[in-house]
């Protein structure tokens, strides 16, 4: 009981020292509002405003129609270039896609042949290159088939493939990026805040103040966990409600309390990681480097930036131990697919297990470092 009270008071002390730092408070608010909004509305894996050019060596009515089939916002208005300009314009990065239509294209099609279209893709932008290439093929083949259907009914494919995207029917990518953005900010801020709280105490010597009081390492660590978790939890809640659900109108298919229980588990892991990093680094500069390495890793390998399935198999085994991967995974399941506890319990367990391991280990380290100070 006494111990609980100690943890409570120490936590309140953390909150007070946090709220007195206006610069920090300002950047926490920015990270959970402006930063998330800018990322969700500004980036997308969809093809958007892609530059495209045509080399039209046929010059038939059909190719005119094909060129007109590309228009904003998905593509920029196509430009016509000559075959000799393809290389240079792509080198300059002026066009992401160049479609080259050969001579006698329409006539060949009419004769039942399958003429070749050359599609040049700037593959340095991997995501857009593959998706945009697919769009162009679909649009071109659609147009060709509707062009000939006017004169020949058999132009229709014999099977009608109906494609539906479940959980996000229009493929709006801000649904996904906004939640991934929150997840990234949660990781970054929690680890920095908690770790910095540990280091600050040590560098300012206030840790000694705490040690002469009748407090133990567990209480000091636990107070940091709850106080910093609370700050992030409030910020996450506000961000989810105001930015994601209100401003971006992302529907929340599953249960909100379930998702927040997951967030709590994750915060437990992230604060434990923060304490761990704060304890092992000897100076702020070391801590800063660790923060960067760990965060870039947690962000880019979580499945929020590139699909987990695309990682090589050995990498998937490694990332299995990254709680951020499970955070992305259970968020997808709950928020978009509307999954219940039966769908997400493996992820919850994994996050809790890694969090607990870190907490126990860093508590031992913390205790040892305090003992040294004593």
């Amino acid at each position, binding site marked *: 009981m006494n111990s609980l009270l100690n943890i409570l008071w120490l936590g309140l002390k953390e909150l007070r020292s946090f709220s007195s730092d206006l610069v920090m408070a300002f*950047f926490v608010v920015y990270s959970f509002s402006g930063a998330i909004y800018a990322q969700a509305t500004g980036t997308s894996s969809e093809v958007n405003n892609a530059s495209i050019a045509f080399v039209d060596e046929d010059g038939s009515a059909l190719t005119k129609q094909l060129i007109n089939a590309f228009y904003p916002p998905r593509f920029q208005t196509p430009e016509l270039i000559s075959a000799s300009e393809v290389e240079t314009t792509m080198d300059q990065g002026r066009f992401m896609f160049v479609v080259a239509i050969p001579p006698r294209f329409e006539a060949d099609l009419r004769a039942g042949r399958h003429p070749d279209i050359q599609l040049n893709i700037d593959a*340095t932008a991997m995501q857009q290159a593959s998706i945009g290439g697919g769009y162009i093929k679909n649009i071109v083949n659609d147009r060709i088939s509707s062009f000939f259907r006017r004169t020949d009914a058999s132009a229709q494919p014999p099977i009608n493939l109906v494609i539906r995207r479940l959980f996000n029917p229009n493929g709006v990518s801000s649904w996904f990026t906004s939640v991934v953005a929150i997840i990234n900010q949660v990781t970054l801020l929690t680890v920095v805040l908690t770790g910095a709280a540990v280091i600050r105490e040590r560098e300012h010597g206030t840790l000694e103040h705490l040690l002469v009081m009748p407090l133990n390492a567990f209480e000091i660590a636990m107070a940091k966990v709850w106080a910093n978790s609370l700050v992030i939890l409030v910020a996450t809640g506000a961000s989810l409600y105001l930015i994601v659900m209100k401003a971006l109108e992302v529907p929340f298919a599953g249960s909100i309390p379930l998702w927040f229980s997951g967030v709590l588990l994750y915060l437990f892991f992230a604060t434990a990681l923060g304490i761990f990093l704060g304890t092992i680094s000897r100076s702020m500069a070391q801590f800063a*480097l660790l923060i960067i390495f760990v965060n870039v890793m947690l*962000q*880019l390998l979580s499945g929020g930036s590139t699909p987990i399935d*695309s990682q090589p198999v050995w990498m998937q085994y490694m990332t299995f131990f990254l709680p951020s991967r499970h955070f992305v995974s259970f968020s997808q399941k709950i928020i978009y697919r509307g999954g219940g506890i039966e769908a997400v319990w493996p992820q919850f367990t994994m996050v809790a297990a890694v969090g607990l391991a870190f907490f126990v280990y860093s508590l031992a380290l913390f205790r040892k470092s305090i003992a040294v100070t004593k």
Partner: protein
Amino acid sequence: MRLAFAFIGSALLMLVFGFGISFDVEHVRYATFDLDQTPESRVYLEQFAGAPRYFRQMPPVRSVEDALHRMQSDSISLVLEIPPNFGRDLRKAAIPEVLAEADGADTFRGETITQYVQSVQDKMLRDPANELQTPPQKYTANFQDRYMYNPTFESVYAMAPSIPPILLILIPAILMAISVVREKELGSIINFYVTPTGRLEYLLGKQLPYIVIGMINYFILVAMALVVFAVPIKGSFLVLTLCTLLYVTATTGVGMVISTFTSSQVAAVFVTTVLTMLPTIQFSGFMQPVSTLLGRAKVLGSIWPTTYYMHASKGVFTKGLGLDLWAQDLIVLACIIPILWAVSALALEKQEK
């Protein structure tokens, strides 16, 4: 010690990302839901099993609820549903429908899966030997894809040149910011207050060692790209080095600006990570070309130094661009530096408040 740490850390990240990040969507787990069970429906579904690189077959789905349930728990990402009478309709040329339901929770992956499905069907219908007994389809064009600058479309060619730009801003900026703020916090900045050292002299003196660290880090990363990933430098190494020098000067400058308005090391770490992480990873052309960004993301992306260095790095590594093409990056990077210097020199207090 700190130095060794920075170098080993970045080498490690380069390894992990070079091998681990990939945009290729492969081995999509799918299940069939065949309500027809005729030879035709089987032939149709076999086409998907015949593309093992892209599709991996899981046990068939028994009911609509079963399908939804397995999609929710992410054990499958695609359901192919063949309606009753598919075979009969196909023989009568009545244009039967096939329903493909893909998991769209991850939009990029969902989009790619739907394209795979479409292209498997297109290929099947065009193949005269497809056993579906349909006349081969008329009026379709073949596409010859030509992936420029990355002929085999492997992620490592896109990744290896993109990782140095990220590391060469995050690390120098934060180390620089800390080194100035540290003096403020420990009080040794008093040396600067009481001596006639000029503001710019002080800042440049602090900046120089971190530029050197950044350059060493750059050589390590380039060596790794060449040796470990076997990604060749097609363009001029000298040009890239020149760009890097400007870039590292600019990125330490970013740290310098941040150091002027933060007063504790904690705040410096915090502010630098919060400010640099997002534009560097999301808005600099790493994930998607800057020209396709929208709104504020585009504005941020076009003033962020990483954008220009990313372009130069990708250009020199994969495209082997000539002078006229990277000159713009060079000029922009060179212009950013004096702006950052001016801002920090003006904002640095010569007296403690």
